């Protein structure tokens, strides 16, 4: 173990340079994020992930954001265990009827101000699961969605760009208000 720790010390971090925020996402957010709400947050957002019927593909890629190459926490973004600690709900899946109530209750448990980010193609409109008796078909049908990150599943870089756009927009909002 000592050899590994030593190697890590001399090797330097593996973490890669951050991508620029996603322009399309910024545009979508500009219209939706409330300036007053932004002021209350610094450049840090706590995220609660909710799987509302995903195939688990999105979760795998969201997980990857925490690995050493993407290292999400360096941006002030972190995943929290309870919606009561969260600013952002990151919702995946076509919203199954069996998960609808749990999703709504998670949203109600999240304090204001809060954002909802829908992740993945099926979270937009149900994707390949659209039309099923067991799916609502998209997060927007249940909660007000501030930002969509598309992809099946979106790669970690796409997720990062979307979340950075959210952060940028929150920060811009707070400085504009000051």
């Amino acid at each position: 173990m000592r050899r590994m720790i030593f190697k890590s010390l001399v090797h330097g971090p593996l973490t890669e340079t951050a991508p620029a925020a996603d322009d399309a996402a910024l545009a979508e957010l500009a219209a939706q994020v409330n300036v007053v709400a932004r002021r209350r947050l610094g450049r840090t957002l706590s995220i609660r992930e909710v799987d509302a019927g995903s195939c688990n593909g999105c979760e795998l890629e969201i997980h990857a954001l925490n690995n050493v190459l993407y290292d999400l926490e360096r941006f002030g973004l972190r995943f929290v265990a309870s919606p009561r600690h969260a600013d952002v709900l990151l919702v995946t899946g076509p919203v199954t009827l069996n998960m609808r109530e749990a999703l709504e209750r998670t949203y109600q448990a999240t304090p204001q101000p809060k954002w909802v980010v829908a992740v993945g193609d099926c979270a937009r409109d149900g994707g390949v699961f659209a039309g099923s008796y067991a799916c609502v078909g998209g997060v927007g049908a249940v909660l007000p969605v501030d930002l969509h990150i598309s992809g099946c599943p979106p790669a970690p870089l796409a997720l990062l760009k979307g979340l950075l756009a959210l952060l940028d927009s929150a920060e811009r909002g707070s400085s504009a208000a000051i």
Partner: protein
Amino acid sequence: MKTLRDILEEGQVMAQHRPWPRAVVGEDSWQQAIRLLQEEQCTLLGLWGENEVVHLALIDAQGKEPAILSFECEDGSFPSIGRAHAPAIRLERALRDLSGLDPEGLTDARAWLDHGKWPVDHPLGQARPAEAKRKPKPYAFLPAEGESLHEIPVGPVHAGIIEPGHFRFSASGETIVRLEERLGYVHKGIESLLARQTIERAALLAGRVSGDSTVAYALAFARAIEAAYGAEVPVRALWLRALMGELERLANHFGDIGAICNDAAFAMLHAHCGLLREQVLRTADSCFGHRLMMDRVVPGGVRADLPREGARMIGGLLAQVRDSFPELMEMYDNTASLKDRTVGTGLLSAKLARQFGAGGCVGRASGRAFDARRTPGYPPYDQLEFEVPVLEAGDVNARIWIRKREIEQSLVMIEQILRELPSGPVCAALSMQPGAGEGVALVEGFRGDILAWVSTAADGRIARCHLRDPSWFQWPLLEAAIEGNIVADFPLCNKSFNCSYSGHDL
């Protein structure tokens, strides 16, 4: 006592079913089959409904002769298998929810996938609108009684970034007395969506049953379709499928080993394993154009050929893994505080693993050597050299160790595939051979054996498709393995099983 072969001979064998035999049997033979399961002469592979028929897939104890028995429910019911053979209980509860066919004699009357929220009852059978004013009844968890017991409800929304499900613990102080799972939260109605679908669209759905096993599911579906159509697949495609399958296994096993250690608060291994997983995914992306290799395996072959520099990229990945992985496992093995959490934790007995036919690491860490790549087997694994590691200990440590040894086997197989990859086309057009129509396949994903069964309509579309995740036979065993452990060890045990929610809920 009659053997599975005797039962098949007594039944009416359906010629359009491939490659295993399927026979329609009467009540006597059905009861004989239940006895075979009960006495462990056979292992349950699946149980599902199609219109007014119940299909039972099973395989002999040697794992060599799989077969399907079909029972025609004349009055909407069939003799329950679950009443005599516990592994069938949840399958029958799900079957009743979806098809409306009644497992006669099943004592558990509770719904399983149907939480009372759908607009229809029995979506796969005689669908009828659910009663408008019906209020979902509270789910009756099995009682645990005793002095100073308390209940801990967990989920469906969990603390981590994982899928939803509900766990009800009854604990005496720190010690878990009973765990009862309640699943079905991510039921998407995939089997209903599959019905009347074109092969192309159905393949997209099959690849999204469980995202972590997308290659294995796409392969199981493709093989079932190819059997139903009587289609041949170019040999290069077979090898590329195996290459993708082994890359998927590597990525998942790295992720799992890291995550189990993380649940014992050993973050360093998690970080290093996460890096290896990411490197596998990036290599997959460079070679096949998708990090999880979704939609790359299609009926008829594969959609992406290995690019010219692909072999070099994968070679580089293997070198990196060979350089760092042994050191990581050495660290795991030499960290007493970590081993203290994993050794002897979450014991699963060999008896239960055998009875439930648990596949994957869960079964192989508890003495069950079954691996669908070996028996019944499918190409090109008959030409690849690999071992199926088996351990007897049945604890979290053994499940980590099986993953480690499977990673080593996958590395060897990938090297052989790169060395001997045949040339030629990678996809063939599908055309339906006369006399065909139904197909079945058993494919080994990283989690265990996935069963895919299809029947096709005259126009070549899907009539009915059933996909059975390995988790069906692993989730119930988690309830058994956790008994007597402390609550704080549940994440460890759960992660060492790593059952699928989406694959199970379908």
